[in-house]
């Protein structure tokens, strides 16, 4: 066959000039055979050949066969073999990766052919729906390539495919069913497909979760041997991470669905972990598990979600398991680092978890609290930088919103507790603060400052701390020592650390400010820094923080130090620094790039140790007091007009609001009244109508009444006359009877009796009639009375005639 020969030619030596044409021709011939052959076998063979050529002659196959392939997918769907070839071919031509033996075509290399063919294929969204339907076909030859084709399409056009699948009925469900697939290769590929599908699309993430994804994935993870398992476990965990990251609804579902407990078994280290060691896959899996936990308690999540997750994590003994990992030996440094970060976020701001953590003991001799062991690493130069950062984060989280914890740390620094033999957290931090390692200085300063956040009592306690710098010299206060260090040191990182500590210390603590102002040289140092006009290499940060501290001294000044009262200090700043320069220095902080980086998240993130300058909580402090300071300095007074306008508009605003409220009230009243009015109007109309009806009924009844009266009169008259006629007749008959019998005129007698009977009957009938009529009359009368009463109720004058009529009738 032709295409075999062409294939052979390309394998042998240099291609002849007509090589391209031959390839394209072959493809065209095959395409026409697929579209015109009536025999399924022929079409199948041609498709098989197209598939074979689709890598080498990708452009030709893609350009010519797209339509016939779609046609086959629609018409030959019952034949699994041909559908398989079709899907494979489409998969090849839309592949994102170039093939090794792909023909260098005339197209420029930089054009992504796969993406273009993908675009062509998905232009009609029906095509994607078609492929989705093939996922339901059990046959391996169809289902597997269908998964692969979707993966390929998704890789090229992720957004478009996500949107199509999202709106195609049961689209996600069909994909989810594949996770229960017994043929692992399909299941694993489906897993990869779902990972790509769920990337940054919250709606798909939620549907996938709704379709029992977490159940399926934990089943797969368990069957694959938990964290000891292969890459499939990692894929499962990555998919879970995709579903949970920044998706509050799914995190809530995960927590409520008790899936947190299912994480626990993955954190149990085997007893012989030191012998078997950590395989790279195990490290990856473990890393994912830790990420999974951190996603649940990420500080950026809503607080109620974090609290709920922290609680279930503790209840599922995960915190305990993680602390065991922390204290185990032989754990790789990056896993250890990540474990510390995870523990940090689990205990952050959660008192119960913080207390649990405070009581964790390290298996050392003598046993020491885990927190002490961790701090030992933080102030140890030889430990990896990331690990030290993690410990700082963990410590920060430990004292975050934890007044008791903060107090306990400061307590270890106070004179009364110095008798203990073993090393304490406080000692470690103080040692680190003035050690020769500037990173340790920074870490310790930040740690100490976190013990003071929102805790005025501890700020005052820390003022009592005395330290002895050198043997034999007199002990000085910690505050004093900080100032001395600032004046003597030239290490940027250390100085920034200590300045941040001072800021935290002095803010909202008049006592600290008072003592600080009394330290000789402290103010001189700050003034010198703030008024300095030249700087290099991040020194603007130092100058900025110095300005900030000066400002804090103004704001939290109780005027007890004569030379540095509020007024004097403001004056000093205005005279020596100048308001403009001062504001400029203050602005240096928030304008600096490290400020933006640090203010982003509580965790300390940095590649290199030299990047650590500002810190999250300091940024928060700065943000909340920057405006206060500028206000206090009366800078705003210069913009006097602005202020008055501002206040005026505020006043106006209040007035405006008042009026708005008033208008709203009146509007509502108006509406209510209108409604009430319409209601009464309607009621009035209704009553009028009713009255009219009653009047008509009344006159009708009157007429009837008159008629009946007339009839009655007539009837009684006729009855009277009949009676009159009858009585002489009866008499005559009774007298005549003997006479008649005598005469034996039977016939006449008979006749007379008959007559008599007839007359009697008529009399009875008439009497009855009269009775009936009388009854009727009484009824009518009653009715009339009722109607009259109603009329009276309705305030209508009652017709006197009818009254008389009924009276006269009663007489009858």
């Amino acid at each position: 066959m032709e295409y075999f020969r062409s294939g052979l030619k390309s394998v042998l030596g240099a291609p002849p000039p007509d090589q391209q044409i031959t390839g394209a021709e072959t493809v065209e011939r095959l395409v026409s055979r697929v579209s015109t052959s009536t025999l399924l076998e022929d079409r199948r063979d041609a498709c098989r050949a197209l598939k074979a050529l689709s890598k080498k002659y990708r452009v030709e196959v893609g350009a010519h066969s797209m339509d016939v392939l779609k046609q086959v997918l629609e018409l030959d769907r019952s034949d699994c073999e041909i559908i398989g070839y079709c899907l494979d071919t489409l998969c090849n031509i839309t592949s994102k990766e170039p093939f090794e033996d792909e023909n260098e075509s005339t197209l420029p290399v930089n054009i992504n052919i796969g993406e273009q063919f993908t675009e062509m294929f998905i232009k009609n969204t029906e095509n994607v729906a078609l492929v989705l339907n093939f996922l339901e076909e059990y046959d391996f030859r169809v289902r597997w390539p269908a998964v692969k084709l979707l993966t390929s399409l998704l890789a090229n056009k992720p957004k478009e495919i996500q949107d199509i699948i999202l709106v195609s009925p049961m689209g996600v469900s069909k994909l989810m069913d594949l996770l229960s697939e017994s043929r692992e290769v399909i299941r694993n590929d489906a897993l990869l497909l779902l990972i790509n599908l769920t990337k940054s699309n919250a709606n798909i993430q939620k549907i996938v979760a709704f379709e029992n994804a977490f159940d399926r994935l934990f089943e797969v993870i368990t069957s694959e041997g938990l964290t000891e398992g292969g890459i499939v476990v990692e894929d499962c965990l990555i998919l879970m991470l995709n579903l949970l990251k920044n998706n509050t609804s799914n995190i809530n579902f995960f927590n409520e669905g008790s899936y947190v407990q299912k994480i626990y078994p993955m954190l149990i280290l085997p007893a012989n972990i030191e012998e078997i060691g950590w395989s790279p896959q195990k490290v990856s899996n473990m890393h994912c598990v830790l990420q999974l936990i951190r996603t649940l308690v990420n500080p950026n999540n809503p607080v109620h979600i974090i609290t709920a997750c922290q609680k279930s994590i503790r209840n599922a003994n995960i915190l305990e398991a993680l602390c065991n990992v922390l204290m185990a030996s032989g754990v790789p440094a990056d896993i250890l680092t990540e474990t510390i970060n995870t523990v940090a976020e689990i205990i952050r701001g959660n008192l119960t978890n913080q207390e649990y953590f405070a009581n964790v003991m390290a298996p050392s001799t003598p046993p020491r609290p885990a927190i002490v062991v961790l701090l030992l690493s933080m102030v140890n130069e030889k430990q990896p930088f990331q690990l030290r950062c993690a410990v700082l984060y963990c410590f920060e989280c430990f004292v975050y919103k934890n007044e008791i914890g903060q107090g306990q740390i400061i307590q270890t620094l106070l004179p009364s507790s110095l008798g203990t033999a073993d090393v304490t957290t406080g000692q470690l931090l103080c040692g680190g603060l003035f050690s020769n390692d500037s990173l340790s200085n920074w870490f310790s300063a930040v740690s100490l400052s976190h013990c003071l956040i929102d805790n005025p009592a501890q700020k005052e306690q820390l003022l009592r701390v005395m330290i002895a710098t050198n043997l034999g010299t007199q002990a000085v206060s910690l505050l004093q020592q900080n100032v001395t260090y600032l004046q003597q040191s030239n290490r940027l990182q250390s100085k920034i650390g200590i300045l941040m500590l001072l800021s935290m210390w002095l803010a909202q603590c008049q006592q600290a400010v008072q003592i600080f102002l009394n330290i000789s040289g402290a103010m001189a140092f700050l003034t010198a820094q703030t008024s300095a006009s030249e700087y290099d290499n991040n020194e603007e940060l130092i100058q900025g923080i110095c300005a900030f501290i000066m400002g804090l001294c103004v704001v939290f000044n109780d005027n007890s130090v004569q030379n540095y009262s509020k007024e004097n200090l403001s004056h000093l700043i205005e005279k020596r620094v100048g308001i403009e320069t001062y504001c400029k220095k203050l602005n240096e902080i928030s304008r600096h790039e490290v400020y933006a980086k640090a203010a982003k998240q509580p965790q300390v993130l940095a590649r290199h140790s030299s990047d650590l300058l500002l810190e999250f909580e300091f940024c928060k402090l700065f943000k909340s007091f920057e405006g206060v300071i500028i206000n206090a300095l009366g800078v705003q007074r210069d913009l006097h007009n602005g202020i008055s306008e501002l206040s005026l508009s505020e006043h106006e605003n209040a007035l405006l609001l008042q009026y708005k409220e008033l208008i709203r009230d009146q509007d509502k009243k108006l509406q209510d009244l209108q409604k009430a009015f319409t209601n009464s109007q309607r009621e009035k109309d209704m009553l009028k109508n009713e009255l009219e009806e009653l009047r008509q009924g009344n006159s009708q009844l009157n007429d009837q009444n008159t008629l009946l009266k007339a009839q009655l009169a007539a009837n009684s008259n006729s009855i009277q006359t009949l009676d009159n006629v009858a009585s002489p007749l009866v008499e005559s008959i009774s007298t005549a009877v003997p006479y008649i019998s005598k005469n034996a005129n039977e016939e006449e007698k008979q006749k007379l009796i008959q007559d008599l009977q007839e007359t009697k009957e008529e009399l009875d009938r008439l009497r009855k009639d009269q009775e009936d009529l009388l009854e009727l009359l009484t009824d009518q009368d009653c009715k009339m009375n009722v109607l009259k009463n109603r009329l009276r109720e309705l305030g209508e004058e009652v017709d006197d005639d009818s009254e008389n009529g009924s009276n006269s009738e009663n007489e009858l």
Partner: protein
Amino acid sequence: MSYAYLFKYIIIGDTGVGKSCLLLQFTDKRFQPVHDLTIGVEFGARMITIDSKQIKLQIWDTAGQEAFRSITRSYYRGAAGALLVYDITRRETFNHLTTWLDDARQHSNSNMVIMLIGNKSDLESRREVKKEEGEAFAREHGLVFMETSAKTAANVEEAFINTAKEIYEKIQEGVFDINNEANGIKIGPQHSPTNPSLPGATGSSGSQGGGCC
């Protein structure tokens, strides 16, 4: 945390009828007068007791806006119960019920229990749909009906719990295939009645029972 059964619910209906508020009232026992528009779907959960059995309700609150219809349809299949909500002060939300019902019937499994809810019963003065009309619609389409107020919490518990009871009865009758998770029902991990309480039941499993049965 141990439960005998887990039921999946969805809440559907026009935008602004109070679906999210119903869910919030049921799960958190509070009312939020100003609620953001739901984007896509949100999740909530609570534990209830029926027939002295712990039953966990997982509830997906869907967006009522037309733009989200195609997304919310994906949730019909896997749900055991649906609360179809309209607003008694807005007739059009009642008029759209047939559309919602058709959609639900088309995409869900046939055994899904649908509860019709006329919400905002506290706004009697602005009522546009009579209670009888809701009853008639429910009778005609074989739904359970109830008027609720997410604001005063009137009937909110009952709405969710009665739906659960209906599902529970269907399970007892063997109508639901409880082993097929696509029906929106799961059997609890420790399905034995002699399992009083494991440590650490979630906060949401708190106070209920009593009045419900």
